[in-house]
């Protein structure tokens, strides 16, 4: 039986290196910590990294492509997180075969996962080629990860165009719900006029803001240890990711004006920026 509330969320960006995998791990882990059974799926075939970020790289036996090609069943490939009982990882394979992902196979695996999981988080590879298109095709919602920097914003705009035209929802005349997540944000640099502000980015991309993750030493520390940011030591980035997940779950104060929420968050950022983490 397919869980009616089961949701497929793609984490995408177009540009590489902006924090898609970090975000996938952080959001997935936080959803699980809140009691939602969650699987994070690595769509970056050939360049597997989600396993490293989530600290399960030594437990990979079978992978996504093995399941698609019926060399293993889904339960053999899923890795259960050792910290959160509701958290699972489906690793990508390291094959160099670009065509290893096909639409029918991906659909079959996602349908299977829907039976068991409330949230399926798809970690997209960079670019707008097959892997990225497969990751977003079946999505109900999309988290568009963007750095406050020109090339990242432009690529995010491209990927928003793809989300509007090349998804199953788009083919059915429905819309993928899109969320903007700004990462590596530095309030100090914004104040000095050296970095695009939240408003600048949001105005250009014109999709609702999910959250702002400050540039933080905690992110590299967490990835060094293979711990999702949201399960790591307390930090500004951890709080920001937790807020973003609350928002994703629709927990934001209904009409307490986004401005209030935003200024509170930015106030928080300033506070953290004053004292080195």
């Amino acid at each position, binding site marked *: 039986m397919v869980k009616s509330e089961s949701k497929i969320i793609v984490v995408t960006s177009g540009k590489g290196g902006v924090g898609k995998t970090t975000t996938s791990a952080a959001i997935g882990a936080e959803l699980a910590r809140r009691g939602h059974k969650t699987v994070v799926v690595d769509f970056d075939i050939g360049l597997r990294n989600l396993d490293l970020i989530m600290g399960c790289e030594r437990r990979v036996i079978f992978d996504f492509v093995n399941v698609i090609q019926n060399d293993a069943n889904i339960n053999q490939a899923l890795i259960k997180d050792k910290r959160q009982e509701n958290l699972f990882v489906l690793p990508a394979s390291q094959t160099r075969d670009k065509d290893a992902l096909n639409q029918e196979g991906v659909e079959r695996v996602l349908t299977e996962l829907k039976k068991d999981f409330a949230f399926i988080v798809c970690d997209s590879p960079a670019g707008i080629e097959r892997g990225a298109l497969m990751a977003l095709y079946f999505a109900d919602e999309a988290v568009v990860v963007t750095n406050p920097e*020109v090339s990242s*914003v*432009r690529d995010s*705009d*491209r990927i928003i165009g793809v989300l509007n*035209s090349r998804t199953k929802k788009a083919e059915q005349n429905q819309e993928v719900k899109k969320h903007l997540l700004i990462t590596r944000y530095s309030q100090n640099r914004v104040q000095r006029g050296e970095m695009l502000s939240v408003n*600048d980015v949001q105005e250009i991309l014109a999709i609702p803001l999910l959250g702002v993750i400050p540039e933080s030493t905690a992110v590299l520390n967490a990835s060094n240890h293979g711990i999702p940011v949201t399960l790591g030591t307390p930090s500004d980035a951890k709080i920001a990711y937790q807020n973003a997940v609350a928002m994703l779950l629709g927990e934001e104060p209904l009409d307490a004006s986004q401005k209030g929420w935003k200024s509170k968050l930015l106030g928080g950022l300033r506070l953290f920026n004053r004292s080195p983490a």
Partner: protein
Amino acid sequence: MSIFSKILGLSPNRKSAKVARERLQIVVSHQRIDEGDNDFLPRLRHELLTVICKYVKVDKDQVNVQLQRTGSCSVLELNITVPTAQESSLTANNINVY
């Protein structure tokens, strides 16, 4: 640094975030137009030619369709050259698309 160049935004001290925002606004607006809207031009040209040929005899190469973007609006320009011998006096026509 003269006050004039500061006004003109030539100052090296001009905030880079502002420059980034302006460059992005332009590149993104073009990107959105390019995202598919442009494939209608060849079809439009073909259909226009079919319709025009019903009324006047024109050379296929004499129909020019161009989409020009200026600021907040785009101008679709049709340039049709009709042989002078024709009794019809169809010349150039501009259609504005907003």
